[in-house]
């Protein structure tokens, strides 16, 4: 089993509903967010092209945060999701510095927090909060090992990219282009 997410950059309108849904579902403290929306503009005026991406922890296969964690608090859960065990986290910040995507933050209570792929929902057979609320249905979540899952089907049909693959992290959020 390998959980992954595919996000259609051609369908995303950048409404930030995924951000609000995540904050509500996961009780993210005010002033923080686990996911965010990036607008990337390429070219020179008037030939401009904009890509909109909903970003979050990439749940990397080769996760630098798991590698540098001194206590084993950052770990791979079943299905490859990268999670933080709050009881083991000492709040040293090494994983925050190690993430090329800046996807982690220090929770006001002291431990490090980040996107969990909404494992508490996924375990019950539901989709992550961000995926379930997306008004343009541009996000797909599922198991890469299952050829019939939403994410496998989309990655077969469409061209895709990942963010900073040259950092060697093997990210598992795929952007359909």
């Amino acid at each position: 089993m390998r959980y992954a997410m595919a996000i259609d950059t051609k369908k995303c309108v950048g409404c930030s509903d995924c951000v609000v849904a995540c904050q509500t579902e996961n009780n993210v403290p005010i002033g923080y967010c686990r996911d965010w929306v990036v607008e990337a503009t390429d070219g020179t005026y008037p030939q401009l092209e904009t890509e909109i991406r909903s970003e979050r922890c990439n749940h990397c296969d080769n996760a630098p945060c798991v590698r540098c964690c001194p206590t084993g608090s950052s770990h791979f859960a079943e299905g490859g999701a990268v999670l933080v065990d709050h009881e083991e986290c000492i709040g040293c910040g090494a994983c925050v510095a190690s993430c090329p995507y800046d996807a982690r933050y220090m929770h006001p209570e002291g431990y490090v927090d980040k996107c969990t792929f909404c494992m508490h929902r996924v375990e019950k057979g539901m989709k992550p909060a961000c995926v379930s609320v997306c008004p343009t249905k541009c996000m797909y979540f599922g198991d890469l090992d299952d050829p019939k899952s939403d994410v496998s089907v989309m990655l077969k049909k469409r061209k895709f990219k990942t963010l900073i693959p040259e950092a060697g992290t093997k990210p598992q959020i795929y952007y359909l282009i």
Partner: protein
Amino acid sequence: MREEIIVSGRMNPRIDPVLNIWHWEIPLYLFLGGLAAGILFFAALYTIMGKEKKYPAAVKWAPFIAPVVLMIGLLALFLDLKHKPYFWQLYTTIRLTSPMSWGAWVLMVVTPLSFIWSALNIKEIFPNWDWKFQWIRDFEAFCRKNIIPIAWIMMISSLILGIYTGILFSAFNARPLWNTSILGPLFLTSGLSTGAAAIMLMSKSHEERLLFSKIDLILIGIELFLIVHMFMGFMASTQVQIDAAKLFLGGPYTSAFWIFVVSLGLVLPALLEILELRKRKIPIVITATLVLFGGIMMRFVIAYAGQASRWLY
């Protein structure tokens, strides 16, 4: 031309707009750790070589600083932790892939050793010192008997401590400025150099000062070579590392790096040491203070500039 902006208003404290997860605590600790490593390395080295009598400052006096600076460093590290009640989790596991885990464990070896070393020499300060309990006297006798193996353990563990302070940074490929294996040897050399400076400050004999002046001069030479080498590596690397080097080549950290670290912290003390070797009278306190100042500035500049360097996508 490409421009990327976060449009959902992400402003996570300590992450945005530029990563600033580590403040003064970490560079201060890295400096003090390197300083202690340098002092303990020379103490162990000259004990193994059997030159305790010839170089008393290196073997007996300067090591009194080591436990003090290590305790201040550890306090700084503890202050940096945000989930303090759980700090003991560091010692429930050994994570070979995590430099921080290496550091936590090597400190468990070096810190007690530095205390034992100071305790063995305490009669130098208080000639009438008595340990009161027989078991402490027995332990002291045991340590004195096995001083050479203890010195070997201290020398190797202080080298690991010195080099780990650099590897801690270089293991982060997310921060291109830190992601160079030169940082390990550079911080180790700088730690040894600041250790030599501390010994120079403590020493009362001209011969010993001159020896550590010479050692320090060589170490500064190695540091300058490593810095040049680091920039050569960056400029021949990927765009993100070229951008990282530019933080020091015209970017916001240019003056801090070239004035405080290189000019005042390395070149000037090296010149003063050369003059001293040529029999000019140079107050040792100036040279040693400049070396220590350069060491602390190097940790601060690299810690802060590293957090400003990043992958852009």
